[in-house]
Structure formats: structure tokens, C-alpha cells
């Protein structure tokens, strides 16, 4: 079945440093979504990417979808303590249900 791998599992940065998490699929994806889950909270939708090579920005967050539509990344510039949480990618191929990666837990020290 479809698998979505996410790395790293965990990253600890100092406030102001950049952060990137990567998502790789074993199959071509029709779209990829990113979610953020704060500690003790539930996942909250951030963005969806559909087109090959697509790049979208939300303030300090930059999302990319690979040319082959098998990988994606989320980059945060100049992290803040409010960025703390676990970031999940979720991909789907064809008509399959969204498959979530295991997430990258981000810890930001002031």
C-alpha cells in the first residue's frame, strides 16, 4: 500500500533558526496536505499542494511539491516559539484515502 515517510522525526532548534521537514512517498501523489498539531491539540490543516513543482508561502512557511509529485517539504524561516508542535504531511494517490506521515516534532528554545 501507499506509504508516506517523513524526516526527521524530531528537531530541536534555537529561536530564530530555520527548520525543514521532508516528506517522501513510495508512489506518485495526486495531492499533498500539511497539518500542524500543537502539544495536546488536534491536527490543523495548513495547506494543500496539487501541481507538480508547486511552491506556496504562508508568511514564514514555505511549502514545496516535487516535480515528480513524490516528495514535499515544509520550510520555516526564523522559527518562533509559537511554531512548536508536530508537523504532518498527508498524501493521496488516485482515489486512495489520505495517508499521513509519522510527523516531525519541532521544539523551539527561546
Amino acid at each position, binding site marked *: 500500500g501507499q506509504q508516506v515517510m517523513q524526516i526527521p522525526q524530531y528537531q530541536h532548534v534555537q529561536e530564530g533558526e530555520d527548520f525543514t521537514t521532508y516528506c517522501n512517498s513510495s508512489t506518485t501523489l495526486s495531492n499533498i*496536505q500539511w497539518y500542524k498539531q500543537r502539544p495536546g491539540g*488536534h491536527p490543523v490543516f495548513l495547506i494543500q499542494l496539487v501541481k507538480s513543482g508547486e511552491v506556496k508561502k504562508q508568511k514564514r512557511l514555505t511549502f514545496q511539491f516535487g516535480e515528480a509529485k513524490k516528495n514535499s517539504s515544509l520550510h520555516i524561516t526564523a522559527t518562533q516559539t509559537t511554531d512548536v508542535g508536530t508537523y504532518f504531511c498527508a498524501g493521496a494517490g488516485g*482515489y486512495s*484515502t489520505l495517508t*499521513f506521515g509519522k510527523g516531525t516534532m519541532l521544539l523551539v528554545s527561546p
Partner: protein
Amino acid sequence: GAGVSQSPSNKVTEKGKDVELRCDPISGHTALYWYRQSLGQGLEFLIYFQGNSAPDKSGLPSDRFSAERTGGSVSTLTIQRTQQEDSAVYLCASSQRWGNTGELFFGEGSRLTVL
């Protein structure tokens, strides 16, 4: 409602008992999903409803797990003869769009502890 509502928020049960978890999706959302999240882990897909039918129930871990949805709205996830490995947070999500391209709106989850 304003958001996805799940109940109970916490459930402690003894091994072997049956439990029912309820999800009330956002009004008008036709797609409904159940996921399971163990401590510090990712989201494990359980089942997906489109209206009242379940086109994808491939994630249900065993025949002790079942789910239904009535009236295209409320869904119930039932776990029979609970085991300790069933302890997790059960998350429900709904989506306005069917298929796999719609944004998922998650509830706060039901935390199940099996003693």
C-alpha cells in the same frame, strides 16, 4: 455545529469491555474519517465514510472494530472486547469534499485507556 464534536473526550475502561465513540461532523460535510493516534505516534487511518457508506474500511485493525454512520451525519466507532493495545486517541475528521482532496477538520479526539 461550528466544529467537529467528539464524545466522550476521555474514556477509561477495563479490558474486555465494549466501548462506543461518537463523532458529530461539521454540518454539511459529506466525508467523515476515523484515525487513531497512539502516544507520540502518527495518525493511523481506520475508516472513511462518504455519506452513509464506507468505501474504505481497510484500516480497521481487527473484526473487533466497527463503525457506522447514519443520516449522513453522526458516526459511531465501536470497539468490542477492548484490549490494552487499543489505548490511544481516536480522532474523527470531516471534509466538505468527497475523495481525498478536501481539507480535513479534526475533532479534539476521544482518549481511550484500557486497563
